């Protein structure tokens, strides 16, 4: 009887495993997305650092520089807020707690910005004050350091979760194969190979 049969499944077991599998895949997906978005945030932080250095060395006009920097502020804050929300949904509490201080800082910074009609933080009339310029530069470097560390943290998180996924999948699949061999020892090698490929 060389026909393929669906291996017996344990009642209720797959659901839990599926849910766990899904939870792990969703976390992995979050980390992957966070990884990509953090790359964008690193890019923003580097742009800020270069922009303030250009201002300091009189390479650019403060009005033009502020017009380039101001549109980038809200997108950066919203991206960071977005993946905080994602981690909340994925129930990744440790990562969320690590990101909360930065979120609070962003909220405070935006609320205490000078009176402006367009979104942004930087006012060309005050940005050339040496203390404000120094503060913005320090902020840029600190954010770059934080985003770099987060990048590597998410990278570890992603590989951690995705290897776990892979291991889990492998375990499940080895379990299936051994079951199949247990029940169908008489299947020829070809059939087992097809079975292997089909459910692999």
């Amino acid at each position, binding site marked *: 009887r060389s026909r393929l049969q669906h291996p017996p499944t344990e009642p209720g077991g797959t659901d839990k495993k599926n849910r766990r599998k899904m939870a792990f895949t969703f976390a992995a997906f979050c980390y992957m997305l966070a990884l990509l978005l953090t790359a964008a945030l690193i890019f923003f932080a580097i742009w800020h650092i270069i922009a303030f250095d250009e*201002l*300091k060395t*009189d390479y650019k*006009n*403060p*009005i033009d520089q502020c017009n380039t920097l101001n549109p980038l502020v809200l997108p950066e804050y919203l991206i960071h807020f977005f993946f905080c929300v994602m981690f909340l949904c994925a129930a990744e509490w440790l990562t969320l707690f690590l990101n909360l201080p930065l979120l609070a800082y962003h909220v405070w910074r935006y609320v205490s910005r*000078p*009176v*402006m*009609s367009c979104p942004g933080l930087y*006012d*060309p*009339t005050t940005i*050339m*004050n*040496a*203390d404000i310029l120094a503060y913005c530069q320090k902020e840029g470097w600190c954010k770059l350091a934080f985003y770099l560390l987060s990048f590597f943290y998410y990278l570890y998180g992603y590989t951690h979760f995705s290897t776990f996924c892979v291991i889990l999948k492998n375990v499940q699949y080895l379990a299936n194969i051994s079951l199949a061999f247990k029940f169908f020892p008489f299947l020829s090698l070809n059939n087992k190979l097809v079975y292997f490929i089909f459910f692999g």
Partner: protein
Amino acid sequence: MSLQSNTPEALRVVNLLQERNLLPPNPVPAPTPCLTQDLQKLNCSPEVFRCTLTSIPQTQSLLNKAKLPLGLLLHPFKDLSQLPVVTSSTIVRCRSCRTYINPFVSFLDQRRWKCNLCYRVNDVPEEFMYNPVSRSYGEPHKRPEVQNATIEFIAPSEYMLRPPQPAVYLFVLDVSHNAVETGYLSVFCQSLLDNINALPGDSRTKVGFITFDSTVHFYNLQEGLSQPQMLIVSDIEDIFLPTPDSLLVNLNESKELVQDLLKSLPNLFEKTMETQSALGSALQAAFKLLSPSGGRMSVFQTQLPNLGVGALQSREDPNQRASAKDVQHLSPATDFYKKLALDCSGQQVAVDLFLLSAQYCDLASLGCISRYSAGSVYYYPSYHHQHNPAQVERFQKDLKRYLTRKIGFEAVMRIRCTKGLSIHTFHGNFFVRSTDLLSLPNVNPDAGFAVQMSIEENLDDMQIVSFQAALLYTSSKGERRIRVHTMCLPVVNSLSDVFAGADVQAITGLLACMAVDRSVTASLSDARDAMTNAAIDSLSSYRQSALTIQQPGLLAPACLRLFPLYVLALLKQKAFRTGTSTRLDDRVFAMYQLKYQPLAFALLMIHPALYRVDDLNDEGALNINDQTIPQPRVLQLSVEKLSREGAFLMDAGIVMYLWIGRSCHPSFLSQVLGVPNYAAVPEKLHLLPELDTAESQRTRAFIGWLRDQRPFFPSLHIIRDESQLKPHFMQNMIEDRTESALSYYEFLLHVQQQISK
């Protein structure tokens, strides 16, 4: 090196609690830096360039120990009686830092000079070796550039980004019902008609006019028209210019048309019933008109702009005027005016604002249009042609000065200091375009600036440091000129020397600027605490480090003995006071003036001068132009110095009060005021009658001399004891106690208590 021996006097220990007569009889002079005789002779005048510490500390830690601010106060475009002007084919500058050659460089031999700011050795160009003044060769150090700390160069074409612009003047006038009620329009038109030939400029000078209420009106003054033609644009949301040219016309060619317009303008709007004001749109239109060439825009506004872009709300709560806590709404409500000012600055347009209003006008938002475009703000509260003749007179005189004073266009200013010092904050009306370059679309002789410095590297091995302010501008005749001021100061490394060189007036001026910034960014109470702490910290630092013997009392060096008095005066100044009813616009204007006025006039605002004038005599009088000008003694600002039997003059900068005591001698009343007795002194007198008596001549000579020293016109109010203006007079009595503020003695006790904590 032989030093000036002013150190012992400056460091004489004064116990402030015991010495009651701190004010010198004459105005306080600026301290002389501790330099050699020949260096000090060449040094820049303190009226132009002044430093808070005339002996610079060697390290930042020494500066921090002294707890005094380090900064410069400058008045670079001041009207000078003697200004050497040099026309040279080469302007000698350092190759690396681009400093102009100045009296404090060192010549290594006849062919090489060492820059005093960056210490680079440069070559002397061949043309520089010849001295045209003395017709001699081989003595570059005798040339006028190296003999004068203040000098003006005629700049060659490398200093021009575009051909020098002509003088362009645009007047933007509010003609709503409120404006016509105040009657300013006829005064303005008359003043411009009188001074039309004295406007600075040459044959290329252009003028234009825009009037606005709920619509914007332009005037076609094309040469050849029989009369001026008015063009009305009512689309204020998207304003446009109705004709491409002939709105700004050449003054010489269209002079009759301009004069016709000025004569007919007041009558044109006599019956207007428009109550709305579209200031934002008028400013946008004016900017469009001026942006091709640059120039000066003079805006006259009499009410809160309530229509179109830039409309403002009334933010002042009259019940909060006398609040003892914080004052709100000191910062702008919208950034429309700031953005417009930055656009104007980019096109070399400066906006001057004249605010003639009785109600709240949100000067905090409107003033931004002048602050960032290097304009000036003039404020005439409650201006009315019938009810307030003192303001009318002040407006007339100020307009005359405004229209005829010297002006510079498309200017930039750079302030350089010796390597090791750096500038970190700027105060004044301009836009900071890069770390040390200030963009000034217009520069006028009445503007003062201040900067704060820090010591980045230790000034070891340096005996002197130098500062140079270079102002590059286009004169009204279309010539590109550079005015250079250089100052040099000694470096010291002991704390007592730092204290000996402290300039208390400059410190007060800089402290006022810093406090204004702090009030706007943080809060008013923060700024007040910071000012009190400045006095406490500096005196405490003096006590701990510079005093050898510990004596009781509040001790201060003689050079800083007036510091607590000036700090108390600042706390009671209109800008910073709490607990006394102050209108928000008055407060904001006082803050602007503290940052804008040159030091001498800012100090008169802060600490007015009080003189007794009923017993003027010729003792110590000055003789100027065959007129004998008496010099009465400066009195302390306390009611105990007032006397019922006398008459006292208080000089507070933009206003003067002549207070008549109840039992004043009738001879003074009859000979100076022309009235038989005290009861006959009129209620609102603001002019001294020109009587032929010696007393009258002396009094008028003295007041006239005081007025001539300043570019704006102070209005004079003659008040009796029951006058309505008496509270204003009494508010300036700084040393006395009021319901909301300490007396001077109590303040000293408070400072002493904080020091000994």
